[in-house]
């Protein structure tokens, strides 16, 4: 009666979603087809800043097979504004994006018209003959261009400025032995999921209902938003989540098309499909990063940190979209990182330019903040003659100091504290894995024409954001289990992870579990997937529902078998009593509904943490960087599926390395995006970074949730620029090159080296 139960939680089980993807039988937005379906193409602004004088679509409308050209005039009335879902500072309100441009365009790619035609190709043909007259206005492409206010009624292009912090920063700087200030920046780039966005909207004229498929991330929120914009009841709209080809923060927010495509379907009473093409993806989906920072640190001469002062300057692009001020706010919040810094002051300036609006991309603000801080720490270590590892070791928060409050850095958030962990342990593990001590003699050395450098970057990363998530578990009449959850799946393996949790809780075989997610049809309310919250929140909700369902199952079985609950257990699809009597789950389910709701609410965040270490070589003649070894150590509390966690880490590191070396959305002075193709917007390929190691620790579970899990989706990216740039800087230190700005393109590194040599020669 006591044979050990093999638990799935904690095991690297194969993913339940893989078979369909591997067989090509997944269903993505562009795979949907309906009788009578029409295709939408968006005409986007070719200019960064202009008045729209007139739109002549007559030639397009005259083409056979073109059903409509929808402009602001067709939408009429007040053009709906995209709401601020996160970080909704009131200062941002005037800068919200209308779902379609009426009088003015403010970035290249802003929607002006929607062409609806029988085929996508035909709609593109029609787009070419729509004549729009513009009056070009001066584009603003950098901070401080106040002479050209982009919004009527605004004096300049600053959307918000605020100060925040804790302690006595001025006092700390006043008494410090040593102070250093440097300016850094991270370039504008974006997530680039492999599937572009896509929506499929169907209008049911009879029922007056709208169904939008292809939604994800925050479907319930987006449904409410859409209902408000269309003047419909929320319950008359459903948003359906199907397979999704990657999200990384950018996909699933409410974009202009999330209104335009359903609007078109309702207007034409026909199913309408819109698939973003890659060119428009690069100018339409949220951009991210694009943060500059002036960072000052105050230290004692022994390297103990006393105070940190940061000024964050964040280019938000042309509008403030759903993510509000998350990017600059988080860049400010994560400036102190995993270190004991008693006095911290941050100031944030979010400003507008004539570029695509900015939103979150995996590790928003953190990737930037860690780069800024960890670079400065290495400079401090150099100045003070302290080993870069030693200065970190001295200042890392110890376990005894946890929970460690970091209040007051984000004006729209309440108190928060680093929850649990052993930061020094993860740090030391990283040092031993990379061989920090043994490799010190390589720092800056020239061997076979390339210089070696080893760099470190420590981080702490928030996840598991509240407020809540819901789940519904249903035992089906065939004895299988259906798990429905409000979390969204963006390709990260959530079906498997939730299936593991449900399987263990209910002792139901994994292959008898089906996980449904995201769609508004599944539950009354769901909260979605962002801020590394799906496992923490959705998983805990599934656990809660599972426990409740287990009780219900046992209760019903007790009645049927005439034995008390305490003598019953669930084994492999049967409820078995101590006396050997048994009844199948299927049989119990056929007696009537056997389902249970579960929920999990949380105000505390999880904080994963760790250290990255990188060993690079730099060819000083070409600026080419080669990564010889990369070690990322992160404590995620509890890894429900270690293989999935490992995959998140490796994938995040490679995305991060793209952000360090490749990804860059480049604009000219007129606000034209110069690289809106995958030939010119570069992301890592298989041959770029072949040697990476990710080590998942489970040292300390999170106290905030019953799984003990911490968000694990984003931690892998947040220290990549920090550690890698430090390694490159270490390699080039003998040449007196310092790194302040990303990306580290070969040409930029070459220029830094050349300028340093020219300075040395002149001196």
């Amino acid at each position, binding site marked *: 009666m006591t044979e050990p139960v093999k638990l799935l939680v904690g095991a690297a089980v194969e993913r339940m979603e893989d078979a369909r993807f591997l067989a090509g039988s997944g269903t993505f937005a562009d795979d949907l087809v309906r009788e009578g379906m029409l295709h939408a193409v968006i005409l986007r602004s070719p200019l960064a800043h202009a008045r729209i004088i007139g739109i002549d679509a007559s030639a397009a409308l005259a083409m056979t097979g073109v059903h409509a050209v929808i402009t602001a005039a067709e939408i009429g009335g007040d053009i709906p504004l995209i709401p601020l879902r996160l970080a909704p500072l009131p200062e941002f309100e005037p800068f919200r994006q209308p779902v379609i441009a009426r009088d003015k365009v403010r970035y290249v790619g802003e929607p002006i018209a929607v062409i609806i035609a029988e085929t996508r*190709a035909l709609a593109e043909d029609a787009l070419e003959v729509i004549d729009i007259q513009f009056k070009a206005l001066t584009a603003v492409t950098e901070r401080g261009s106040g002479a050209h206010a982009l919004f009527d009624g605004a004096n300049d292009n600053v959307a918000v400025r605020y100060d925040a912090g804790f302690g006595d920063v001025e006092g700390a700087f006043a008494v410090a032995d040593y102070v250093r200030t440097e300016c850094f920046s991270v370039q504008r780039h974006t997530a680039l999921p492999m599937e572009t966005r896509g929506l499929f909207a169907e209008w049911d004229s009879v029922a007056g209902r709208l169904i939008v498929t292809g939604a994800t991330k925050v479907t319930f929120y987006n449904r409410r938003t859409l209902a408000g914009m269309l003047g419909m009841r929320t319950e008359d709209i459903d948003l359906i989540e199907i397979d999704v080809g990657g999200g990384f923060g950018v996909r699933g927010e409410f974009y202009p098309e999330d209104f335009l495509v359903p609007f078109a379907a309702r207007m034409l009473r026909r199913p309408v499909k819109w698939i973003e093409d890659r060119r428009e993806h690069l100018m339409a989906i949220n951009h991210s990063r694009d943060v500059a920072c002036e960072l000052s640190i105050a230290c004692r001469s022994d390297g103990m940190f006393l105070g940190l002062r940061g000024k964050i300057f964040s280019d938000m692009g042309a509008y403030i979209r759903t993510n509000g001020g998350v990017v600059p706010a988080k860049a400010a919040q994560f400036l102190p990182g995993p270190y004991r810094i008693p006095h911290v002051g941050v100031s944030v300036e979010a400003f507008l330019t004539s570029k695509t609006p900015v939103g979150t991309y995996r590790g928003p603000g953190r990737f930037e903040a860690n780069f800024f801080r960890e670079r400065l720490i290495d400079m401090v270590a150099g100045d003070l003659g302290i080993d870069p590892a030693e200065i970190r070791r001295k200042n890392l928060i110890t376990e005894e100091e946890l929970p460690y409050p970091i209040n007051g850095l984000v004006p729209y958030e309440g108190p928060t504290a680093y929850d649990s962990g052993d930061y020094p342990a993860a740090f030391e593990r990283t040092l031993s894995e990379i061989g920090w001590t043994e490799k010190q003699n390589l720092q800056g050395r020239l061997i076979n*024409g390339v210089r070696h450098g080893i760099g470190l970057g420590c981080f702490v990363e928030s996840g598991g954001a509240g407020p809540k998530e819901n789940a519904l578990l249903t035992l089906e009449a065939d004895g299988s289990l259906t798990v429905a959850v409000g979390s969204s799946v963006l390709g990260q393996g959530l079906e498997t992870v939730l299936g593991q949790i449900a399987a263990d809780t209910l002792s139901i075989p994994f292959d008898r579990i089906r996980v449904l997610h995201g769609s508004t049809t599944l539950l009354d309310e769901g909260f979605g997937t962002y801020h590394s919250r799906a496992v923490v929140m959705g998983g805990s909700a599934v656990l809660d529902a599972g426990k409740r369902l287990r009780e219900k199952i046992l209760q019903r079985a007790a009645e049927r078998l005439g034995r008390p609950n305490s003598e019953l257990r669930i084994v492999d699809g049967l409820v078995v009593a101590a006396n050997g009597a048994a009844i199948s789950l299927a049989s119990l389910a056929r007696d009537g509904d056997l389902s249970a709701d579960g929920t999990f609410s949380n105000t505390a965040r999880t904080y994963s943490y760790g250290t990255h270490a990188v060993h690079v070589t730099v060819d000083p*003649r070409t*600026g080419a960087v080669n990564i010889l070894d990369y070690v990322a150590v992160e404590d995620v509390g509890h890894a429900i599926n270690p293989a999935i966690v490992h995959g998140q880490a490796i994938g995040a590191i490679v995305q991060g390395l793209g952000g360090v070396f*490749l990804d860059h959305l480049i604009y000219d002075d007129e606000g034209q995006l110069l*690289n809106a193709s995958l030939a010119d917007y*570069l992301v*890592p390929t298989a041959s770029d970074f072949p040697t990476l190691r990710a080590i998942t620790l489970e040292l300390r579970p999170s106290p905030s949730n019953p799984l003990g899990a911490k968000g694990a989706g984003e931690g892998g990216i947040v220290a990549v620029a920090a550690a890698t740039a430090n390694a490159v800087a270490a390699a080039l230190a003998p040449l007196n090159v310092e790194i302040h700005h990303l990306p580290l393109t070969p*040409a930029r590194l*070459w220029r830094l080296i050349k300028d340093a040599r020219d300075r040395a020669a002149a001196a």
Partner: protein
Amino acid sequence: MKLPSLDYTCPATLTEAIAALASHDGEAKVIAGGQSLMPMLAFRLAAPKLLVDIGRLPDMDRIDISEDGVDLGALVTWRRIERDARLAQAHPLLVAAIAHVAHYQVRNRGTVGGSLAHADPAAELPGIAVTCDAVITIAGANGTRIVPAAAFFRGGLETVLKPDELIVSMRLPAWRRGRRWGFAEFARRQGDFAMAGVAAYYNLDAQGAICDAHVGVIGVADRPMRLREVETVLNGRRPSIELVRHAADAARGAVDPPDDIHAESAYRRELVGVLLERVLASAGDIDMPEAT
């Protein structure tokens, strides 16, 4: 990014192909592997009324090796070059350069004729053609003509091809025995177009001095270039560390690359010097002192 509306024909003979090209007042375009043209169509940067698919023309996918040189039919793919074991002897520079062309899938479809006709300034084959004094055979409504590679490229994505003409083949002069050679390019990622590339070869005369030096560069001008100044530096001198440096400096001085989104001009200029140094060092088995 759907293609613009167009007609398509797949002629069985060269004569038919030329007739089809000539029939459309300059609005017809040749397609073979399509690896350069299809992206142009997808972005609607090209919008021909008719595509003439020469992919099934007979005898245009031959690789002929003779005492006169290497003849590459217009339909020869990168994959065919990569796999033709004879070419390692017959033209090792070609093989080395072609190894850098694009990615696996593109290499299965991309053709010699397509690369020449597309005339990307950073493409490897046009660079080899110019460096090696190749000649290109062109057939058109007014008959066949043979154009030296040096005269074939007119500018960025521009050639002497007339609307009713197509490339039949390219001939590389015979590879002389004992030749010293090298090829190097620098790209942001594997398979990307080069930010700069250098091809070079020479022979040594009885005195051990360089003769018949050929040096070409890609990716640093609106078309592939021969660097005659560098060849002049090399010819008549024995390979040495000093000569390599001198030649690399001459190469830096001989190019004036444009800025682009990937790099400033000065960087590309320097790349040309560094790459030529590496090419000549490897060609001459010269152990260059380690740069700092």
